């Protein structure tokens, strides 16, 4: 019989429906392993049968599901409890006994063996428990670290989004600030929305302020400096919103004590813009 004849002989159907003899079943499994056409033909019939069985299925009574699932649950719990260490097992001896000393000896020996086994098992389970516990806390700290990183990413993304929005606004004027004679290499930009009066500072190229100090922005109007806010150094990589400024001829940045000053400290002027 060639493969084609074999496939159409009805043996596949007979096997799938459980009607073939042991030898026929063995032969078919061999044929399936050797010829993918046979395997495929079997799969096709199986799928066909499954489809039909589902199509022609009969809904069993609802209570059956509850019954079966509760039995499964009991079995699952039993299974789980079997995996736990049995601590008190060796203590379970029947209450009333009338045995010879010989038997007692044997039973004592058996109890010792049980106790030893149980002890070993306890160690084993404790080891497992400890291992999983460590793995769990490692996972937990990895997760925490990821969360922190995620939060930082989010913040950065928000910062960049603000930056892009601000820069895209056509009412925005860009005012460049240059380093004074003491720091000619410093530069920063003020983004000033003349319509909404919003002010943003981009100070990416400034060095970090010394401990306990902060950069403060000033709006210069007729020679009088008006506080425009202190730069939050954590935000220096993107546009930082500052105080609103309604009118100014130029801007300046000074180094002040943390939290800012009411008026700029003399000699601390770092950057100014051209008027």
């Amino acid at each position: 019989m060639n493969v084609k004849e074999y496939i159409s002989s009805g043996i596949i159907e007979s096997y799938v429906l459980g009607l073939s003899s042991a030898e026929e079943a063995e032969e078919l499994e061999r044929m399936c392993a050797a010829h993918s056409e046979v395997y495929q033909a079997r799969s096709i019939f199986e799928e066909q049968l499954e489809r039909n069985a589902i199509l022609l299925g009969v809904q069993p009574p609802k209570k059956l599901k509850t019954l079966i699932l509760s039995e499964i649950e009991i079995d699952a719990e039993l299974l789980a409890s079997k995996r736990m260490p049995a601590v008190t097992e060796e203590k379970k001896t029947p209450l009333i006994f009338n045995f010879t000393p010989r038997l007692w000896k044997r039973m004592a020996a058996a109890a010792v063996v049980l106790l030893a086994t149980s002890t070993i098992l306890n160690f084993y389970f404790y080891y497992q428990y400890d291992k999983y516990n460590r793995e769990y806390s490692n996972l937990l700290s990895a997760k925490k670290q990821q969360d922190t990183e995620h939060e930082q990413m989010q913040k950065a993304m928000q910062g960049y989004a603000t930056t892009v929005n601000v820069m895209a606004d056509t009412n925005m004027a860009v005012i460049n600030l240059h380093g004074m004679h003491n720091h000619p290499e410093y530069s920063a930009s003020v983004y000033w929305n003349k319509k909404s009066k919003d002010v943003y500072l981009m100070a990416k190229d400034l060095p970090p302020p010394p401990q306990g100090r902060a950069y403060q922005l000033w709006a210069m109007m007729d020679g009088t400096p008006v506080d425009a806010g202190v730069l939050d150094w954590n935000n220096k990589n993107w546009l930082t919103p500052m105080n609103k400024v309604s009118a100014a001829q130029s801007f300046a940045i000074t180094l002040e004590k943390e939290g800012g000053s009411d008026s700029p400290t003399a000699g601390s002027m770092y950057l100014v813009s051209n008027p």
Partner: protein
Amino acid sequence: MLQSRDASAFNYLYEHYAPAVYGIILPIVNETEVANDIMQEVFLSIWKKIESYDPAKGRLFTWMLNIARNASIDLLRSRSFQNARKNQPLMETVNWNSGYHVMQPEIDAIGLNKLLEKLKEEQRVLIELSYFKGYTHEEIAEIEGLPLGTVKTRIRNALIQLRNLMK
């Protein structure tokens, strides 16, 4: 996932296959109460034996079908159910010491049984005896007074017919 005995996966399995499995059991045992018992037995043994399911030997459903059919046939045999069903007075069958004293009307044309109606009588009988009653080919040869080879060929042809009737 199922093979690691996950109860929620089993819940899904039940939702998906319970009607199909019930449709296999019912036409074999022909009694709702009995079929309900077998259903419990079958799904519990699916749960317990899931590790022994070998995908190389066929689809999960095929495996379940065979568990369901075997359990149903086993019951037919152990309770000599077939005697009770063949128009014998109830008195003679009371000794099966179970709760099923009242026979229900036969449940016809349910599940895979539905497909049988369209087969030729001769083929229908063979499928009935082998698949639904669980007789071996040898037993059928004896019942029908046919050579074993003929029985085998005819059953296979009947199965091919049955397959052609499927969607």
